[in-house]
């Protein structure tokens, strides 16, 4: 195996700058997408647990569609196909005039995709609380909205912290798919450095280390949060 090691390459200009901007884009896409995924996913997940047949059906269809098309294909659909389906002016706006078109499209696409996964976690979190608490709430005279607001959601979200953490880590890793529509996040930058300098080892190692670093930080942080808010007597559920 012939290879010329040169670890200095990742600290040289402009490559160091590429790496920093790459990790910046990765984190921005992940956080923007997570905000969308979390809010929309919560709504859809809650809809799936309600008694209304129509809203349950709509939520199920959403989850099945977004879960069963590969993320990269969804990326292409939003980036290439979606503007074509809009009226001319709106399509033009999405393609050209929208601020940071690649970033926005990637974040929206990743958010909508992950919303379907978050919805499943929210649904199973709420359902794991059991019918008893729901009935108890209704028996004390709370309305359905109040039962969700005061009983199911506060308990549910505390149980859901570990699976939601792993969903966030998934979004963080999946943000690399944004490179297919031209967002220069960390994986794309590593690839670009490899192509410019042929120092693939150094470039890919840097990206790998950064991914592991962020993953570890998030996991440690969330373990602290989890410990703070865990529900006494539900250790087994919380540890899952």
């Amino acid at each position, binding site marked *: *195996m*012939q*290879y010329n090691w040169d670890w200095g390459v990742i600290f040289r200009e402009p490559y160091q700058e590429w790496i920093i901007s790459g990790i910046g884009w990765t984190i921005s896409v992940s956080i923007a997408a997570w905000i969308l995924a979390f809010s929309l996913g919560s709504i859809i997940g809650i809809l799936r647990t309600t008694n209304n047949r129509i809203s349950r059906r709509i939520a199920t269809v959403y989850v*099945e*569609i977004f*879960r*069963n*098309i*590969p*993320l*990269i*294909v*969804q990326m*292409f*659909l939003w980036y*290439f*196909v979606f503007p*074509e*389906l809009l009226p001319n002016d709106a399509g033009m706006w999405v393609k050209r005039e929208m601020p940071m078109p690649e970033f926005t499209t990637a974040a929206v696409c990743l958010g909508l995709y992950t919303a379907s996964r978050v919805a499943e976690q929210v649904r199973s979190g709420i359902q794991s609380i059991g019918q008893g608490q729901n009935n108890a709430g209704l028996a004390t005279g709370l309305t359905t909205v109040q039962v969700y607001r005061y009983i199911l959601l506060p308990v549910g979200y505390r149980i859901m912290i570990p699976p939601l953490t792993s969903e966030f*880590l998934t979004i963080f*890793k*999946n*943000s*690399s*798919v944004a*490179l*297919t529509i031209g967002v220069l996040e960390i*994986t794309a930058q*590593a*690839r670009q450095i*490899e192509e410019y300098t042929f120092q*693939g080892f150094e470039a*890919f190692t840097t*990206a*790998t280390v950064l*991914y*592991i670093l962020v*993953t*570890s930080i998030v996991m440690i942080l969330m373990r602290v949060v989890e410990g703070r808010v865990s529900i006494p007597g539900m250790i087994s559920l919380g540890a899952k």
Partner: protein
Amino acid sequence: MFDQFDTNVILENLHFLIAGMQLTLLLTVAAICGGLVLGTLLALARLSGFWILSLISSTYVNFFRSMPLILVIFWFYFLVPLILGQPVGGYYSVLIAFVLFEAAYYCEIIRAGIQSVRKGQVYAGQAVGLNYFQNMRYIVLPQAFRNMVPVLLTQAIILFQDTSLVYVVGVKDFLVSADLVANRENRILEMFTTVACVYLIMCLSGSILIRKLQRRYAL
């Protein structure tokens, strides 16, 4: 818009798309087989009770699970030719990447499956005089696999979707074939819509089938 939707372009290039789908399926099946074998070994190492083996296994799993698949694909696209000293083509690089990457996920599924077999079964096996391998082969693994089948199949569907990521190194799978046609004929709308529908139908029917199997064969 849809009034210009041209279905002819799909029919004319059908053989090309089918060839792409064959490669996608081939890659999926090969990655499942390789991933299952390696994943089982990793899971056994993890549960073996030798701390060094289980440390290696858990490091491997955590390492691959904290990396995005695209980065793994790039790694092996770069590494495999370098190690072998000759170009091998994208297909083999991505196959190796998929096997090693999926093994980490299969390991976790299999480990959970093995741990779901009650301890009493293992003791009973030991009591009738089976050694470790016989115990695994005849008592634990058959029950464990039965518990795991739904999760393994779901993972297979996820893997089937993930193979589309070979796009980043241009291996001619279903998506790349469709992309080539789309650019050559300037029919992006038709081709990507078709791709999405095909994936949706295949994955959806797969997951409905799994749910039915699960209801029928649950232990």
